[in-house]
């Protein structure tokens, strides 16, 4: 258990770091996909198998591909190299990220006593998930469905306009 956690944690962190820092944007996307897999593994260690499956399906399958497509559609003619960030920018970014991490870590560490105090853990099956979704969470479900429809339409409209005009 511990080993699984540590393994997937490392994969996630490495993936995330590479995704954020590599110069070649295609490599970034590939690192991101690695990261998504790592997250999925972490979900598995948390006994949320269904979520892990969805994670792989949606993120790796859809979002990752989408990102890759976007990268490919927006590539510079000269190559995959984009403009370079300055060191000043990197330092500021690291500083901000570090500050956020430390703030959150401090909060977590402070509460670790309480956090560690566990009484039980929850598990559940997909069947339970479905039942809850259809009974308790049907309204959010429908709303999300509408949202997805709208997003889809919107995305098509935005991406299509130029296309229509060109014609």
């Amino acid at each position, binding site marked *: 258990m511990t080993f699984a956690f540590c393994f997937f944690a490392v994969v996630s962190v490495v993936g995330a770091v590479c995704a954020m820092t590599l110069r070649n944007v295609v490599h970034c996307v590939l690192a991101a996909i690695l990261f998504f897999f790592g997250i999925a593994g972490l979900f598995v260690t948390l006994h949320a198998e269904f979520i892990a499956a969805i994670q792989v399906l949606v993120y790796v399958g859809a979002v990752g591909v989408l990102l890759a497509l976007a990268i490919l559609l927006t590539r510079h003619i000269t190559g995959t190299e984009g403009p370079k960030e300055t060191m000043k920018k990197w330092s500021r970014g690291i500083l*901000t990220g570090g500050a*956020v991490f430390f703030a*959150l870590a*401090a909060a977590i560490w*402070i*509460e*670790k*006593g*309480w956090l560690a105090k566990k009484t039980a853990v929850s598990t559940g099956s997909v069947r339970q998930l479905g039942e809850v979704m259809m009974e308790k969470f049907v309204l959010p479900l429908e709303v999300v469905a509408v949202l997805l429809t709208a997003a889809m339409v919107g995305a098509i409209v935005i991406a299509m306009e130029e296309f229509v005009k060109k014609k």
Partner: protein
Amino acid sequence: MRAIDYIWLIPLFPLVAAGLQAFLKRPQKRVSMFLSIAAMTAALVVSLWAFKDTLGGGHHDEPAKPNGKEMPAGSHAAEVRNGGAKLKPAPEYEELAKKSEHVTYRATHNFPWITMGAHDLKLGFVNDPMTAIMLVMVTFVGLMIFIFSTGYMGEDENATRFFCFLSLFAASMLGLVVSNNLLMLFMCWELVGLCSYLLIGFWYFKPSAAEAMKKAFITTRIGDIGFFIGILWLYAKSGTLLFYDNGAGILEDANVAKLAAENMSFFGVYMSVSSAIAICLFIGAMGKSAQFPLHVWLPDAMEGPTPVSALIHAATMVAAGVFMVGRMYPIFDASIVDGQLVHAMTQAHPHPTPALTFVMWVGAITAVFAATIGVAQNDVKRVLAYSTCSQLGFMMMGLGAVGFVAGMFHLITHAFFKALLFLGSGAVIHGCHHEQDMARMGGLKKLMPITFVVYLIGMLALVGAPLTSGFFSKDEILLAAFHTNRIVFAMGVFGAFLTAFYMTRQMYMVFAGEYRGGDLHGHDAHAHEKHGAQAGTPVPPDDGHGEHDKRDDHGHSHGGMPHEVPKHMWMPLAALAVFALLLGFLGTPFIGGNLWHHYLAPESAAHDVNWMVMGIATGAGLIGFLLSRAIYGKRAVLADGSDPLQSKLGGVWTLLNNKWYVDEIYGATVVRVNWICAALFRGVDASIDWTLHAISWVTIGISSIWRWVGDEFLINGGVDTVSEGVRGTGSGFSSVQSGKVQNYLRIVGWGAVGLVLVVLFLTREHWEHWLSK
């Protein structure tokens, strides 16, 4: 119909004429002349009507004077007209009035002028013998002078303005005479002063005329200070200024008694309030009638045209002072004896009040003083001016010596013959082509015969040749003086002597001998022996004029030779000459009692005829004439142009010729003080100016500093700084909005960090105990 109801027309006619003439243009001379003469004629007609009214005597508007005549109680105030109320005369009184000859006519018409709350300031007109005779005199003499002026001023380009001023003067003088209110009298007094000023300086472009007009006005103004003090005092004591107001007027017994009863002291001199007020009023008369020491303006007033001199400075305006004293006589001669009001003029043996004494002495001094100067003058008009001054002194002397009737009589007669003399001198000046120096005249008897005759008549009247009007009037005055104060009488006699002397001198210098000016025309002029004082036949006005006159008319120069004046100029002279001769018979005691006395003031005591006085007066005149003839008879002017008397008198002559240096004394004292004060005040003014400049300079300095510091530095600077600060801050802040989303997110991140830390801090009690675990 009574004249008093229409008496306001008399001053109104000339006033309207003056108003119309003010709008005429300079070339419209004939229109102007016509208006003046028409107005004056109309005024004369109404004046004659008023005069007729007063002849009746009888109806009386006031209680009888306390000279013994008793009035039935309650029947006074017959036929009063005060704003409309009319009362029937009480039958007993009418009876009494018809019988008595001792009641003078007096009609008044009073009306409220200004209403101040419950109190009215009333003005009014009065018609009584004094007014009426003055009206007739002023209008008649004025009319004669107006007619004369049409010739004399006909060529002058400003004749329109001249007649306008003449009309205005006539209106003012007539208004003065008919006024029943001291304030209205004073207003007209000032108006005549103004007209005198305007007319003296008629030729204002001459510097000497400009100086003279100022001098006249200012000198009379000094006198008016006293006059005004008198008016105020009188008003304060009496509460009214009406002369006759049905018993309540200031000249009526009730008020006069009140004034005479109160005593006051003036620097240790005790006198009644009535006398004190009278003296104050007299100071005004001193200025207006050129009494010593305020006489200095009258000779200089000769700068004006001769008709002006005749009308204003001989007959009428200067007489206004005498008239005023006559009008206010009840106040002058009032005193309280044994608790009763007594008027000095009603007493058989009069004792003059302090006021009358003052008047008498001033008059006497003036009479002698002016006459002495007249002896040594070379300008024909100056001689007459000093003569006027001297005669006014005589009038004052007469009035002061409790000779009310005598003084007023002399006023009237003097008006006629002095106007005649002045007009005659005007004719002479005109004929000699505006030559005024007597040293350059002479022999005009043959050259201007009519003028000579009328002038002679005037001269005889002035010196008091027997049976002329001047004789009777001067005699009356000397008689009054005789009975009052022998010294004054002696001074009067001396004055008569001098009058004869200088007038004879003038006759010789102007008319006798040969013409000394310009080129001669071959006329034989020999010394013409004048009528002696004994001859009694007056010379009738000459109708036959020499060949000269028929051909010569006005403006036709005869090679510089003097010529007679045209008809419309000598006819007025002739008319005046008639009066100069005949008027005297009104006042002589030999004919029907003294008509004049009965007419003017029947209640005043009359002196019996005193042959001694008459003889002394006549003798003095005769001596003067003979002495003058001795000196000037053969040759009026010496070969070197100097006066024959000059060598005999030497230094005295110089003193007299220079008018006793009075003008110079005034110049060194009063005028000098004035100049010093003026310079002093100019210095004060300059220092005020300097102070103002300094203040303004300081103010400007302060304001510049403030502008620089306050405005520029503080306010502008402050505002600029603030605005710059805001702008800077704004631009500083706007740099936050860089448009770069990543920057925004970074800030959000930091904000989130901050929030977390804050929450942790705020809930530290909650988790602190977990730290140890």
